[in-house]
């Protein structure tokens, strides 16, 4: 069976090489048969890697501890759910998983477009195959997941070995979210390969117009959405499992996952400039290139441990391969761009400084500044060691100091941008649109001040958040009011109709609203409190309005772990409000202790209690309690972002409108009066693409 898996992987590699070579040959010789066979080979890669993944999972489920990877990451007592997830618990499996997800994307792209864009798709296939070759090379020759255990004896004969029991899965990973978080992130990382492939293909093939942007918009959003969900799930996992009371530590791997998400965000905004105005063509192509390179860099940081990180579950010297691959990508991108730079010549014009266009320019500037700051801080220890030889660390204070002002400015633009009209906005219109939301923001700020929440950044964040939320509501309200009065429906269903009619625009607003909630949640961390105390049964601990009474300490055990558990009763205002059971689990297979945090979550605050262990001096249990305001806003905001992203993926009802009689919607029929279509005037303000 291990031969079966290795052989499937090897065949996948051969198929990818064939798809690459035959694809290039097909483009050069213009033989459609070659191109077709290249495409089929590209699709076959998916089937072959699927077989390899199935083989590896088979070993996990049959507890075959003669396989090195299975012995290292599983044991008999591991629940089936986690046996499945153990696939990506270490280096080799993660890389196989990467290849597999990429092959799913590649297959879907090739299959869905098999009868479309005959000029473009061969190039796309070649780029996809090129990326697959790299990862399959790692899977086959550098980090094969199908190594068997054993050793050669003195005479050079290899003896197989089989362990009776495996090492078990890292307990940190034994958490339901850990089964979802890595696949989500990997779907993001791999998904950005699709827009990259189309961008590079369009550039290489000099494919006319903005078509590649239209084709890849949904693919980019899918990758971007997965990446965002993956990041948030990771944050939630850190919060719920690591037990230090926070969700984001600016760990190198967290940063690495944030980088392509930021540039992807910039790309999703700046493509509108190209679609609407034919501007920024070079910029967009490079944004996609950079996003993809950051994905590869992120994978490298995660997998190689170049920068020390808690995530380096399996560190190795694989980094060198990635550096070479990154250099190749950069060289190919530079060459393709240099050779075809005339194809990207765009007609850049701005009518006014106060316009949607300049809003997008600054949005991109700010996002790239944030990306740079994060990348710089993440890689600086490496630079410093190269140049000065001394090891340094770059921790949260740096990232917070640099990124908080940037993020707040971005939040401001989130409110301003959508209200700016394309081409030009009069100051009068600005005043009209901004006065109330801004006033609302300041009122909220004043209320917070009166209530005693004094923290500069948190206050600015609150004011801006309320401002942005109100501008979003006013956009919905204005659109919905018109529909409501015309179709005689209530405002809520009118808002629904409005959203479905232009999913891209209003889905985008919903995403913005979700981000506002996340910002509010993050601002809440300025008011975190924590208390740590040794507690015997019957003793109490006070935090904020709560009093925690220690009722009991006991022990629970099963095949997988033994657990020390505290039973705590929480009082508020003298009344018992809830019970909490924080635990410390000792995992038998891996001989590792982990905390299980007890979190009582409410909309406005989390009570987060950790059983920190027994004090070595007194032997008494130590309870660490945190009161974290507004954390729930972050997770809820993430849900809203996911919802908005899903909405923006739906086709808008705009297409249907075009078919209605011209008398009702004359611009849809393309009616022309006085030499100017009303649609053109309207398009300055409202359009499917804004």
């Amino acid at each position, binding site marked *: 069976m291990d031969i079966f898996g290795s052989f499937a992987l090897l065949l996948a590699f051969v198929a990818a090489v064939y798809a690459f070579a035959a694809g290039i040959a097909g483009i050069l010789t213009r033989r459609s048969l070659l191109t077709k066979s290249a495409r089929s080979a590209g699709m076959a890669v998916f089937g072959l890697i699927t077989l390899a993944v199935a083989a590896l999972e088979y070993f996990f489920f049959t507890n075959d501890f003669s396989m090195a990877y299975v012995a290292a990451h599983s044991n008999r007592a591991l629940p089936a759910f986690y046996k499945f997830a153990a696939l990506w618990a270490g280096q080799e499996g993660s890389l196989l998983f990467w290849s597999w997800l990429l092959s799913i994307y590649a297959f879907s792209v090739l299959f869905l477009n098999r009868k479309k864009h005959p000029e473009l798709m061969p190039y796309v296939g070649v780029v996809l195959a090129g990326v697959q070759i790299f990862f399959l090379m790692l899977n086959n020759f550098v980090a094969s997941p199908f190594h068997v255990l054993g050793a050669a004896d003195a005479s050079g004969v290899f003896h197989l070995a089989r362990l009776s029991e495996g090492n078990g899965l890292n307990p940190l990973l034994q958490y339901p979210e850990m089964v979802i978080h890595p696949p989500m992130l990997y779907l993001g990382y791999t998904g950005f390969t699709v827009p990259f492939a189309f961008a590079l293909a369009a550039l290489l093939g000099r494919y006319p117009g903005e078509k590649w942007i239209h084709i890849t918009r949904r693919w980019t959003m899918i990758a971007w959405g997965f990446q965002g969900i993956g990041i948030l799930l990771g944050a939630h996992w850190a919060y719920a499992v690591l037990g230090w009371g926070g969700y984001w530590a600016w760990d190198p791997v967290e940063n690495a996952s944030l980088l392509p998400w930021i540039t992807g965000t910039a790309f999703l905004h700046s493509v509108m400039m190209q679609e609407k105005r034919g501007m920024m063509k070079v910029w967009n192509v490079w944004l996609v290139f950079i996003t993809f390179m950051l994905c590869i860099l992120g994978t490298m940081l995660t997998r190689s441990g170049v920068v020390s990180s808690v995530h380096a579950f399996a560190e190795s010297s694989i980094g060198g391969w990635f550096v070479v691959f990154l250099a190749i990508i950069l060289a190919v991108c530079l060459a393709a761009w240099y050779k075809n730079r005339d194809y990207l010549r765009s007609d850049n*014009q701005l009518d006014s*400084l106060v316009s949607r266009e300049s809003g997008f320019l600054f949005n991109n500037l700010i996002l790239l500044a944030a990306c*740079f700051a994060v990348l710089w801080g993440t890689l600086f220890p490496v630079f410093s060691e190269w140049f000065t030889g001394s090891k340094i*660390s770059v921790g949260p204070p740096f990232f917070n100091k640099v990124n908080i002002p940037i993020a707040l400015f971005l939040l401001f633009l989130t409110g301003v941008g959508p209200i700016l009209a394309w081409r030009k906005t009069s100051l009068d219109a600005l005043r009209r649109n901004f006065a109330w939301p801004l006033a609302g923001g300041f009122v909220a700020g004043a209320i917070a001040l009166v209530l005693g929440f004094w923290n500069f950044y948190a206050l600015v964040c609150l004011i801006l958040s309320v401002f942005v939320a109100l501008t979003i509501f006013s956009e919905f309200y204005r659109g919905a009011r018109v529909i409501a009065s015309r179709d005689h429906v209530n405002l809520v269903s009118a808002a629904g109709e409005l959203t479905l009619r232009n999913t891209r625009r209003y889905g985008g607003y919903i995403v913005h609203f979700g981000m506002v909630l996340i910002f509010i949640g993050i601002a809440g961390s300025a008011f975190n409190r924590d208390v740590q105390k040794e507690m015997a049964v019957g003793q109490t601990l006070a935090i904020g309005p709560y009093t925690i009474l220690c009722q009991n300490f006991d022990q629970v055990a099963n095949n997988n772990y033994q657990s020390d558990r505290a039973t705590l009763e929480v009082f508020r205002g003298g009344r018992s409000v809830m019970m909490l059971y924080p635990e410390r689990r000792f995992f038998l297979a891996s001989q590792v202790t982990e905390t299980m945090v007890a979190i009582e979550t409410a909309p406005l605050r989390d009570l987060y209690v950790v059983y920190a262990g027994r004090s070595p*001096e007194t032997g008494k249990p130590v309870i660490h309690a945190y009161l974290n305001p507004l954390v729930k806003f972050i997770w809820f905001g993430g849900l809203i972002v996911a919802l908005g992203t899903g909405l923006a993926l739906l086709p808008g009802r705009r297409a249907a409108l075009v078919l209605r009689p011209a008398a009702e919607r004359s611009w849809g029929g393309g009616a022309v009066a006085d030499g100017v279509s009303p649609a053109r005037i309207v398009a300055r303000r409202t359009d499917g693409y804004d």
Partner: protein
Amino acid sequence: MIRRSLSRIFWSAALALLVGALVFVPAILAQDNAEPAPELSPAQMARSNALSLKLRCMCGGCNDTVGTCNHTGGSFSGPCDTAKAMRKQINQRIARGESDDLILQDFVQEYGSEVLVTPPAKGFNWLMWIAPIVLPILAFVLVWELVRRWRRHSILLPEGPAVSPELLARARHEAGGESHE
């Protein structure tokens, strides 16, 4: 009279403290870690918390600060033994009345500059702080210049056909009031 007896009490207390210090401090210094965790006042505790977030846990298995270290494998999961020992050292030094700077300095001497969560803005490391400020400003100037150039470019273009008020009104009506220009 009262003043004299007060001053006598003061001086004898001071003498007792001095003798105590002479006897005990060397003993304390000699067995640094055997010293029980000192009781800190809330203000001192706040200083200790702040310092513990400025220092990195040097256990080698994590990327956390002393205050947040919670990595797997510590015999006392969260914080690990290294972090706890470092925390204790901080508390003892605070209890002794040492300044924050002195404490940080001693940690750097013991572990190297890696122990600081962010390096001081000196020498090569100055670049780390300055780049994320300077580069966005440069980029901002660049974008600003670009915007100006693109604007100038567009002014040279002829104006489009004039829009009559009737047409504008019609367009607004048909746009269903979505236009606010």
